[in-house]
């Protein structure tokens, strides 16, 4: 198993940026068994997350080895150093007061810097700065290319939810033993998910919320959801999904809702994607 937890807590664009607010939700996440955290330079939460986790380790007796901390390299960083991004990772470690990262991901795979950046990642992994390396926002095209280079990722993070199931990518990753993480796992509770009759029926059946059912669907299809919230009660709610499983038919019914609907257009954040 490549992560210690089944859920990752994200500190993305809609997360708390202030220390107290983030500490409050991260504390609840840890108490609920979520010890995996995701950040990125563009989220402006790297430093504050580092301080929050340091406080958490001190007050709750959690060891560094219990935590799973991952960050990313942004597109501008790939361009700025023409792919040789080690100095940015060193800066991130310093900012977060860490000696290593559990995972480092390419946030947006700019084609002109992909190969050089990936080589840089492999080097940092060999040096022990990073335990696992991965990439976000890829499609089959990029995955095949990475496998062709002989450097497949260990983690792939995609925008995935019942309206965009990325079945081909998930199956491909399963074949190559690549862990798949899903960001925006609930599609920001799009009305087509929130008001879906089937999902509501399942929520009623299991005495859970629609959000919990969808997160369970991610886990039951072998995908780790990365969710975020500013509300401690929401974090507790979403963490409480270990007491039920969906049946094969129920999983199939949710997966069938796929309409390839994505909120974040890859080409808009990654020109030439």
């Amino acid at each position, binding site marked *: 198993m490549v992560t210690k937890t089944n859920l990752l807590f994200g500190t993305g664009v809609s997360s708390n940026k202030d220390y107290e607010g983030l500490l409050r939700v991260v504390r609840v996440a840890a108490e609920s068994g979520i010890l995996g955290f995701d950040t990125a330079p563009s989220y402006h939460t790297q430093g504050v997350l580092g301080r929050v986790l340091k406080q958490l380790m001190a007050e709750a007796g959690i060891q560094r080895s219990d935590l799973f901390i991952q960050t990313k390299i942004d*597109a501008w960083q790939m361009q700025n150093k023409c792919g040789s991004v080690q100095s940015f990772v060193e800066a991130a470690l310093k900012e977060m007061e860490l000696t290593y990262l559990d995972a480092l991901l390419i946030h947006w795979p700019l084609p002109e810097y992909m190969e050089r950046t990936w080589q840089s990642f492999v080097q940092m992994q060999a040096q022990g700065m990073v335990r696992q390396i991965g990439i976000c926002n890829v*499609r089959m095209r990029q995955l095949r290319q990475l496998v062709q280079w002989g450097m497949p990722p260990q983690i792939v993070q995609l925008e995935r939810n019942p309206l965009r199931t990325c079945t081909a990518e998930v199956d491909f990753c399963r074949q190559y033993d690549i862990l798949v993480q899903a960001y925006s796992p609930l599609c920001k509770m799009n009305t087509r998910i929130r008001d879906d009759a089937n999902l509501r029926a399942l929520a009623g059946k299991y005495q859970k919320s629609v959000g919990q059912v969808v997160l369970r669907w991610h886990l039951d299809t072998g995908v780790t959801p990365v969710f975020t919230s500013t509300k401690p009660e929401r974090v507790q709610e979403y963490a409480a999904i270990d007491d039920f499983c969906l049946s094969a038919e129920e999983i199939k019914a949710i997966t069938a809702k796929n309409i390839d609907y994505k909120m974040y257009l890859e080409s808009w954040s*990654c020109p030439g994607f």
Partner: protein
Amino acid sequence: MSGILKKMKHKKSRLVALGFAFGNGVLIWCGWYVAAAVLCIATGLDLAVLQKINRQKELFSPRSTVRNVDYLIIGDMCSATKFIPVGSNYVQISAPGRSLNASYEILRHTFSILPEQGGKVILAIREGNVDKNCYTLFDVPFFHPVTLERLRLKSMVWQSKFPLFFAPLRSLRFLLGTDRQYHPVPCPREDIRDFCTQRDLQLIYVQG
């Protein structure tokens, strides 16, 4: 007045609005009513151009629900309905004098609004702009910061906030939506053809 300012969340927008109000106030105080009226009209037109560009840009933000459209039309001003079947949904990003180079860059930024398989792209370019290596302030709003850095276009970003003042004739043509006759021809750029093939995009190139 304070209610309008409260609605303008960005500091820069507030400063510009206050500057405009001050400038207009000075003109009226000096008795230059015609100049004040011209300034009002010019500012209104400028905002109209900006609004049209921003409405196009907004389609690509996560807030937009426009996704998996049948056609993406990029290039010079043209009437989309001449190229696509009735009932098709499309997104059009057109601007006067847009070069093939600029259209390709915009394609690189926007094609994900098409379906994963079988998306159709129409590039509409005027003959004189096929070989031009130029970008205008109508192109820049669609470029990622990485692209602006690569193409050294950062200085054009602030010009793109005042299109009527830096490109008055083009801005008027942009608002009026002028049209030309286009006819399909093979795309003259192999790199664009390859780009589309690799991403399973059907390219329709029309020249006028």
